[in-house]
């Protein structure tokens, strides 16, 4: 039976940049366990002949021709940006490295 520990929830919250205090962790960890248990019950109905899948329909190889289509203008691209400068998206100071 799946179980998610309080430490694991804290780790996930950190990875997702969600700031949870102790009370919230106490509250959420058991809830997530229940959700995982519910999802796990799917395993009970899946027989050995049903392969695990990540997609609802069994399609493969949906490809696009390598043909250029018009892009947005820079004005359009930047229209939703909270801040821009030099025709670029302005983002807060980055901590850490490029990927």
């Amino acid at each position, binding site marked *: 039976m799946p179980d998610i520990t309080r430490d694991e929830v804290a780790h996930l919250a950190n990875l997702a940049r969600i700031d949870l205090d102790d009370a919230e962790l106490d509250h959420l960890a058991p809830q997530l366990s229940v959700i995982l248990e519910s999802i796990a019950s799917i395993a009970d109905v899946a027989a050995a002949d049903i392969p695990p899948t990540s997609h609802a329909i069994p399609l493969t190889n949906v490809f696009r021709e390598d043909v250029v289509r018009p892009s947005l203008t820079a004005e359009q691209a930047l229209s939703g940006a909270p801040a821009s400068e030099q025709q670029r998206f302005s983002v807060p100071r980055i901590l850490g490295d490029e*990927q």
Partner: protein
Amino acid sequence: MTETLMPYDDAIAAFDPAMGLEVHVELSTNTKMFCGCSVEFGAEPNTQTCPTCLGLPGSLPVINGKAVESAIRIGLALNCEIAEWCRMARKNYFYPDMPKNFQTSQYDEPIAFDGYLDVEVDGETYRVEIERAHMEEDTGKSLHVGGATGRIQGADYSLVDYNRAGIPLIEIVTRPILGAGEKAPAVARAYVATLRDLLLGLDVSDVRMEQGSMRCDVNLSLAPKGSDELGTRTETKNVNSLRSVERAARFEVSRQAALLQAGESILQETRHFHEDTGSTTSGREKSDADDYRYFPEPDLVPVAPSREWVAELKAALPVPLREQRAQLQADWGFTDLEMRDVVAAEAVGLIAETVAAGAPPQAARKWWVAELTRRANEDGVELTELPITPAQVAAIQALVDAGTLNDKLARQVFDGVLAGEGEPDAVVAARGLAVVSDDGALGEAIDRAIEANPDVAEKIRDGKHAAAGALIGAVMKDMKGQADAGRVRELILEKLA
């Protein structure tokens, strides 16, 4: 911060290096990996984006079929297995170089895996095993504002251009390269150089390291000599020239050896290479942040290349590099040693182009391998980065063949072309470099030389023709090098017969 370094030879005497190389290659498709935006280099910022590559709500990606084809061809050329079925995956992180907050990549199901590439160093062949080659997309380009040097550290904020975000990228990952010992940095360089030639032959990428369309990360660790354990590794990111690949590996060997010798441990971290000093500095420590929570991309269906398609692509691959080189060597009439020097100088392609432009192969070899390689080393650049084209080298050789220039003058024409003085003809005219073929002027110079060296002249009259060298030297000096030494010799022997 100055690092303590152990001299390279001492480091190699005490430790065995293990290397892993990750090479990112931007494909030269017309459009991005998942949308129809152009991938052309050098466009104005944020003019090649759309809702899909900006990660706007409601947009859906569709895979570029041409990119899949290129990925399979690269895999096949690297002797890899091609997956019968594989998926894209989301790599989640918070760095703003991807507007989606994730990069669409592949995780445990790469399209190509288990291959190898043979590379040659000093006539010895090293087999570099390929773990995988997978498909992903490039990230945007950040400009860091404020702070001292435009670097990320100390910046106040950053400006992002997403033109590059979404360009098809293939990441090629080697297994640990072991047993290369002192040659490890040279093997790393030869691997990247060979890979570059292979990709050029496939016509799948521009492979311009200086433009970033091919980038290399160098993982390196040391283990005490003779031990079969692997040490803690560092990952030096974005090493952007062949020369830098070798230098970064050498530097890490010396740096890590000094730490280990002092009883300290190696920090598992990313490091940055600096072209100017040839050193690496600490980047980011490996941490929880490297948990990317990969999961299969729900917006894209799996890729399942049919075996017929793979076989078709395999049949149409160009001749393998090794065979291509053997054929070129035969065509050019080079000895094994000459060909080895050509390969080591990374000049195969340049010589091929120079020969195609009309130069004799041996002359093309002489200029690129001896003369121009030396100049590239002096300037600390790649041979291909020198501001001279194969056509210009062929043009200079044509002037030599026509008797307009001798080798010494030709070198001065190289000086001029490299200094940006224009085409060879223009340099010859502007610098007044043509050989003097006026026998009258030569005759006067010879008379002066004979007068100044009566004893030498006497020997030649006595039939000791070998002594002519001293007179030829004097005449060449008098003519400031602008004479054909062979003709001078003929004239001297005629006069003193």
